């Protein structure tokens, strides 16, 4: 395949970028590592992978005022491509390589040059696995749906 020209993709807004990040957050380390083959030489670390805490909040009654449920480990990283584009990775857990790969994925996606390859080599396989898994879960869970019959007492 010939190199696609850099496309600024004016149609791709933060929502699309967020959607890619959602995929990255659900990806395994192995799936994300596929991005390394697409990364140009000379990716620099703006922020070396670092593990810390994010306080997870819930809402009272599910829909009321917020409260602190408990913390979660999160690892973050930021990278810069030789073109100057920066990318960020923020993932639950303590896997530094995964966070850095997510940052590279973000940077490559924002840069836009390799979006087609990203789609084929990285994003599609993740999406396919997630779709299959959620369909399986939905069916397995749906199989435990019950109907409780209220027994009528007395005369009928």
């Amino acid at each position, binding site marked *: 395949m010939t190199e696609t020209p850099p496309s600024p993709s004016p149609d791709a807004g933060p929502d699309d970028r967020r959607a890619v*990040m959602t995929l990255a957050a659900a990806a395994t380390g192995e799936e994300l590592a596929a991005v390394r083959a697409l990364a140009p030489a000379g990716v620099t670390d703006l922020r070396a992978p670092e593990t810390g805490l994010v306080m997870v909040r819930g809402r009272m009654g599910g829909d009321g005022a917020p*409260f*602190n449920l408990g913390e*979660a480990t999160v690892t973050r990283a930021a990278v810069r491509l030789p073109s100057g584009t920066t990318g960020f990775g923020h993932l639950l857990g303590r896997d530094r390589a995964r966070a850095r790969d997510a940052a590279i994925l973000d940077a490559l996606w924002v840069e836009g040059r390799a979006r087609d390859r990203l789609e084929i080599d990285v994003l599609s396989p993740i999406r396919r696995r997630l779709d299959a898994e959620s369909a399986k879960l939905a*069916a397995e869970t749906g*199989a435990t749906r019950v109907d409780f019959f209220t027994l009528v007492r007395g005369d009928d």
Partner: protein
Amino acid sequence: MYVSVKGGEAAIRRAHRLLADRRRGSRDVAEIGSDQIAEQLTLAVDRVMNEGSLHDRALAALAIKQARGDLVEAAFLVRAYRTTLPRFGASRPIDTAEMVVERRISATYKDLPGGQILGPTFDYTHRLIDFGLEEASETPGPEAADALPVTPGSTPRVTELLAREGLVEVEPRGEDGEVGDLTRSPLRIPAKRDVRLQQLARGDEGFLLALGYSTQRGFGSTHPFAGEIRIGRVEVEFDVAELGFAVPLGEITVSECQMINQFSGSAKVAPTFTRGYGLAFGQAERKVMAMALVDRALRTEELGGEVIAPAQDQEFVLAHADNVQATGFVEHLKLPHYVDFQAELALVRAMRAEHAARAEADAADVVEDHFEEAAE
């Protein structure tokens, strides 16, 4: 109070080596992997994440292995680990309405939109030991019936159904500003509900269970119904300043319980159903049910009721719910108190001597009186 002691280093080192050996157990049995704990002792892992107040399955599983299965010790290890990490910030509040539901039941509505979904539950099992599990065997996969699949967003909250009729109190949305945080400032009584819920979320399951049970037995009854219990995955989002939007960090499993309580009203509030709320990491159904009962009990005063039972007493509940704190204070009694005890020993000896002297003197008085009476 205890004082520093010196010495015993060799004994301590050997004790810890012995501990490591006993943790490993018989070398004839394969060593357990923390991945096996994470996958096969999932509910223990969930409990340690909650009481350790840190969501990290792999870490909690490792802590359980290190603690020889002592879940309070494991929570302690997790708490200690979290102090080594910087805080990046707070997430956006998770949205349990958007949960990918794996279990969702209601004890108040038989036919509720989205249906009753049992999911992986111990309910309706006969609690008979399955000796088949003694031997490793192929576990059949779950059935995937042609039933209606469970789709995200297809399960509205039960409380919303009641709220439409105005029969249940509406949670004030509140400003998403200042949220009380026990990891930053110590507990103060009276505590607001945000702080109370945080403390209950990391509180000891056994303690909360006992308190919840006590309300059912009449020590501050709240007439509860399990309006809804749901378990499933939710996305955690985190605002990143550099990006200007909320970044998805990944999904976590949470359990949620909406307890609905009959309430005949008070001077302040018209008769309505009131609510107690429970939320926890992982599959922690008993925990969130107990939490919801205790949350409602702790709201007694704000609903115009009189605080008469332990579960309604903020200080009693909140100051004693944290098992890491509790075990620290109870177990510190094991540490050397030699000097303290020597002082107490001297004191008790002195008091006994005084007591004996007084008894002797009293006896002498009695004898004297007796002789005096006899002489008269």
